């Protein structure tokens, strides 16, 4: 079932000197199994938007449909509690949420809260450790002894252990080295392709958006400014100039080559390898793969 935002607005601290309108009449529909990126400058309402998807924030106006749940300004939090299991939200720097005595208990914390039977939790933990590429010997260790990247993967396991159908991630690569970032994105992609999870992520790294995502939503000042395929948005020079988005590096090269007269089809380019293939194809004047 899709995620739908119907004319959603959100105001922080209404009627106070700190009042701030974070979302303004947002209308969106995210289909099942989509891989969507939400981009936009700091303070454009990206995180606020994410927190509406699992009901952490209730809209000030409008409504949101996620699976069979409907969230309106008057929704009681109790009634949407199970939504939090179905739409797993991974916060920025999720390693800060670790607290249990060992990795095993920390991963089991979420599913336990939602009443998943113990033997099923065990199964999930074992298969998840393989999925995220952590040795099962870590299960007995304290989460505070692990390295930064390991901590983050454990935290991700903690959300995945609830087996959500929608995975929402706030800057999953922040603070990771390039290789760690690529690793976690490949993992997310695998979850999308093999397990059919809907992925909605916020990121500031446009190269990632181009390479992994099927769709981009650009938020500016709490409004949806653009919504479409990454390549189309990143080649829209007017939009880039207006919203101060930095073009992904491969597209910067492609733009120059196209300007120089090379008839590249930018829609085929997602990373450096694609760019090379595309140049080869154009140069040969035929189809190459």
């Amino acid at each position, binding site marked *: 079932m899709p995620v739908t935002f119907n004319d959603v607005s959100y105001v922080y601290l209404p009627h106070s000197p*700190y009042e701030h309108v974070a979302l303004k009449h947002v209308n969106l529909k995210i289909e099942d199994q989509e891989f969507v990126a939400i981009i936009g400058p700091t303070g454009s309402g990206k995180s606020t938007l994410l*927190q509406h998807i699992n009901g952490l924030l209730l809209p000030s106006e409008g409504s949101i449909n996620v699976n069979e749940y409907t969230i309106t300004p008057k929704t009681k939090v109790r009634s949407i*509690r199970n939504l939090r299991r179905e739409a797993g939200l991974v*916060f920025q720097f999720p390693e800060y*949420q670790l607290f249990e005595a060992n990795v095993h208990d920390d991963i089991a914390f979420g599913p336990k*809260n939602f009443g998943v039977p113990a033997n099923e939790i065990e199964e999930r933990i074992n298969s998840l450790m393989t999925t995220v590429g952590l040795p099962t010997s870590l299960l007995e260790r304290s989460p505070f002894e692990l390295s930064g990247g390991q901590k983050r993967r454990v935290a991700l396991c903690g*959300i995945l252990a609830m087996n959500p159908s929608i995975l929402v991630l706030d800057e999953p690569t922040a603070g990771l080295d390039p290789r760690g970032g690529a690793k976690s994105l490949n993992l997310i992609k695998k979850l999308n392709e093999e397990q059919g999870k809907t992925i909605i992520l916020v990121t500031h790294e446009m190269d990632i958006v181009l390479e992994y995502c099927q769709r981009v939503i650009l938020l500016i000042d709490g409004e949806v400014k653009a919504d479409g395929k990454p390549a189309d948005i990143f080649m829209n020079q007017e939009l880039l100039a207006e919203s101060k988005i930095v073009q992904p590096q491969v597209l910067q090269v492609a733009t120059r080559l196209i300007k120089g007269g090379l008839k590249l089809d930018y829609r085929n380019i997602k990373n450096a390898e694609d760019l090379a293939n595309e140049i080869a194809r154009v140069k040969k004047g035929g189809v190459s793969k």
Partner: protein
Amino acid sequence: MKNITLGRYLPYDTWIHRLDPRFKIIAMIALLVCVFQPLPWIVNGFLALVILVLLLMSRVKISSIFKSLKAMWFMILVILIFNVILIRTGEVLFTIFDYPIYTKALLQTATIAVRLTLMISITTILTATTRPLDLTYGLEFFMTPLKVIKFPAHEIAMTISIALRFIPTLLEETEKIMKAQASRGVDLKGGTFKQKINGIIALIIPLFVSSFQRSEELANAMEARGYNPSGKRTRYRTLKFHAGDLVGLIVTCVVVALVFIAIYNPALIGIGGLV
């Protein structure tokens, strides 16, 4: 978390906001002393009126004061019970199950309730109109003479200002961790007692871990910039006594003088008959 209203600085620009923090601290103490005097009701009413005017001037919401009283009803109830048992003077107002309730007991409780309300109002005015940093500058000023007896005035002021500086940060952090754990099914409002305890543990441990990390980082950052607690330093913002402060000082003196005359020589201001 952001909706904690009581005692929070409100970024308006009123006359009270612009007053010197040092003066505001003194005025607050003076008013508190007045409030806790054994006052006749008419003088209490006068003080309440003065404080009400100050509240309105500083744009503190009166409703927020009453909200804080809600949290105190239990304390007032306990005081009432003690007073009913202990105070046996005055007239008997009525009897419950042959137990006499004296008027004095009720009056005494009412007085305490009024005093508490006024006390909260006064302190709220101070904290709502003074930036926490200005407040610590003010405190440091009053502690400076104690340096003579090797009292670490600057260090204490620095500690207080760091603590104050990190209150909003910690609240933000708390909110973030709460949301992260709520996403993992923690339900601090509903849920059984055991679930609530587990939820609190899931909140407190990460908060401790990140606070320790933060304090270490801050200490390193300060060291890296050559911080030396015993060094002599200048201020970016210096406190100055303005004409407005003088007006405030005169008003405070008049109020305090009126209150004390009312206590010790009521005839002087023509309310002798009323007391």
